[in-house]
């Protein structure tokens, strides 16, 4: 099923990571879900084994592997239903901002910690009044000599409670007349004066993922924490959001595959029960349709991964994959629940958690409606 990611080396890496997952993560996951957070030690264990940012070059402490190794990790975590310890966000969504737009000094300062798990990352774009419309953010960064003074509030930020370094989208007061040109990205580190965390928000799913509020009140950071150039933040985000959407599609697709597998296992265990055969024959077409959806999704996704790794412009394709796999995953998990009968709503049957978790996919990293807006633009509509 994983043709793009399926050389012998990839396979061995996947197996090793799966073993790590079932030894170091899965036995504790229910507990983390109850506690609403993942312990820092788990991030460190991931780092110690080289499972954070494996694509970072050796000079910055990484393993210098291909990006697809990171995708293997994201895939296996989604397959196991692990959303709390969001390695994909850390490694493939936030770290690339530092890697792509940071100076050598910034990279040398931060990337080794990203690899080891000592520096957990977050990216803060969304604000209470700026969700889909990213250009309307109001958090400001004012340059004063060698510092930036940041004021504003961010919300629904993943890793909000744990993050040691947050890439914050701010408006600099350039008055360029174009809201897109006023945005810059500044790295705010834990301990910066005026930086605090708000609530760890309760959600439908992803309970162990600390999604919360970040507050900046005259927050002072060194001017050297600016990523790239002032005024280019919006374009930086537009560039890196492509990979974020790819990570999201990988998660949706892998969740759908996991739920279908899980359901087929449940049904085969039920086969011995009275009446089960009748039930199964009735559901046959429905299962076949889901299997077809999942297969089509995987084929499209693998072709997208191939394009992305090859450096092609994937904006249309990744936007399509993001919304379609998110919808498909939700469709599949909802129909699979129907096959679990009343057991579907019991939390002890993992499928109920997958159901709660899957609902996030059409929302974060740009809602499905925003994906369609982007595709419409590309199509010239």
């Amino acid at each position, binding site marked *: 099923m994983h043709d793009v990611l399926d050389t012998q080396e990839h396979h061995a890496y996947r197996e090793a990571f799966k073993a790590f997952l079932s030894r170091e993560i899965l036995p504790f996951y229910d507990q983390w879900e109850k506690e609403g957070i993942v312990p820092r030690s788990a991030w460190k264990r991931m780092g110690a084994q080289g499972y954070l940012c494996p694509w970072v070059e050796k000079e910055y402490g990484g393993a210098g592997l291909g990006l697809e190794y990171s995708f293997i990790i994201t895939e296996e975590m989604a397959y196991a239903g692990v959303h709390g310890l969001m390695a994909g966000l850390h490694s493939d969504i936030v770290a690339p901002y530092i890697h792509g737009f940071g100076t050598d000094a910034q990279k040398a300062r931060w990337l080794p910690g990203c690899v080891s798990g000592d520096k957990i990352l977050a990216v803060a774009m969304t604000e209470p009044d700026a969700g889909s419309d990213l250009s309307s953010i109001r958090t400001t960064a004012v340059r004063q000599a060698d510092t930036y003074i940041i004021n504003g509030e961010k919300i629904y930020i993943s890793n909000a409670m744990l993050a040691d370094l947050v890439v914050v989208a701010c408006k600099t007061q350039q008055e360029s007349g174009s809201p897109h040109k006023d945005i810059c990205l500044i790295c705010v580190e834990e301990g910066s004066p005026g930086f605090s965390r708000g609530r760890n928000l*309760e959600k*439908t799913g992803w309970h162990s993922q600390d999604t919360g509020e970040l507050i900046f009140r005259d927050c002072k950071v060194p001017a050297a924490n600016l990523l790239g150039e002032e005024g280019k933040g919006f374009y930086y985000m537009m560039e890196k959001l492509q990979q974020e959407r790819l990570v999201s599609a990988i998660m949706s697709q892998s969740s759908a595959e996991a739920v279908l597998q899980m359901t087929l296992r449940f049904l085969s265990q039920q086969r011995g029960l009275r009446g089960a055969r009748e039930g199964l024959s*009735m559901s046959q077409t429905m299962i076949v349709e889901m299997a077809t959806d999942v297969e089509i999704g995987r084929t499209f996704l693998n072709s997208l991964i191939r394009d992305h790794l090859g450096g092609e412009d994937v904006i249309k394709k990744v936007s399509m994959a993001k919304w379609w796999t998110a919808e498909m995953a939700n469709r599949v998990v909802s129909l699979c629940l129907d096959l679990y009968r009343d057991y579907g709503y019991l*939390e002890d049957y993992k499928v109920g958690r997958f159901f709660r978790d899957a609902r996030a996919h059409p929302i974060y990293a740009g*809602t499905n409606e925003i994906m369609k807006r982007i595709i419409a633009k590309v199509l010239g509509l």
Partner: protein
Amino acid sequence: MDFQLTKEQRDIQTAAREFALGEFDPDMAMEFDAKQQFPVGVWKKACELGFLGARFPEETGGQGCGLLEHSLIVEAFCRQDSGMGMALALAGFGSEMILRHGREDQKSVILPLVAQGQGIVTAAVLEEAPAFSSIETSARATNHGYVINGAKSFVTLGTIASYMIVACRSSSDAPHIQSNFLLEPSLEGISVSGMGDKMGMRMIPVDRVTFDGVMVSEENIVGRSQCGDEQLRDFFTELRVETAAMGTGIAQGAWDRAVAYSKKREQFGKAIVSFGAIRNKLADTYVDIEMARLMVYKAAWSFDRGRPDTRETLMARMSATRAAYRTAYEAVQIFGGYGYMTEAHIERFYRDAKALELLIEQPPFQRALLADQLLGKVQ
């Protein structure tokens, strides 16, 4: 043909809406959902005002109304709050069997209890095996009455129920011959244990109940002996309409909230209700809701005229619980990131809608039953 509700029906609807608006505090609902507790206080108030026994005869504490009036109440409750609405509607789960088939002495005990909110009644019907199969829990006749052995699952509010109606096979040679027994769960040999956390419908915990040599008498049989099968069938017919009314209410409630939010929320300099992507969702889901509502009222109306129609009840249940799921799904989407947060309340409608769809008869099973009704059983 007359598509108008009567004045009395409209009054009932308004009264139920006003009650729900006044009593279903969203933050309180969120807390009951989080703690997985049945909202006892609100339930008692609803009973005091006669909402939950509306279908029961006046002499048993009811209002002498029909299933349509009951559906209007349930719909209004679920529209205001999915969790509270379902919890209240299901507090008398199975009492329909007493209402339609019980002996007079059974009616005089159970119906006032349910109508006045003095006790919870539940029915223990489902077992581990799928619903297509026959019931295994058995009631064996002895010289002194019956001995019940077996186990039931998904018994709503089993731990706090005052009475439980237990579906048993009552003939050793013919599995389809059944009797329903009305029991107090405190009897020796009955043990009730929770089935754990749920992802939706959390104000109604479900339990596993085991029966180990439970001694009961002939008197415990609901109505006539060996008629359990028919009683259950009638109960499910009525329950389907009630469930469909819940679905319609949940769908409408989710839609109302999505509309209110989309008018308030601005992005790109405009209220999001002005965007095609949002308008499409609100238009499509409204079609689902209105079609479900028509089907629910039709099924309830036929039932009240003494012509219950299994096809109608199935179509009502299928269309309404589907409308609830789809509308709540889209409502969460319209709320965006906020929608996924517990504090926005809309995600509760979403979890509850899916749980409702899974309650007792799931869509594949409903579809198969409907196909049998329309096309005849496959031999």
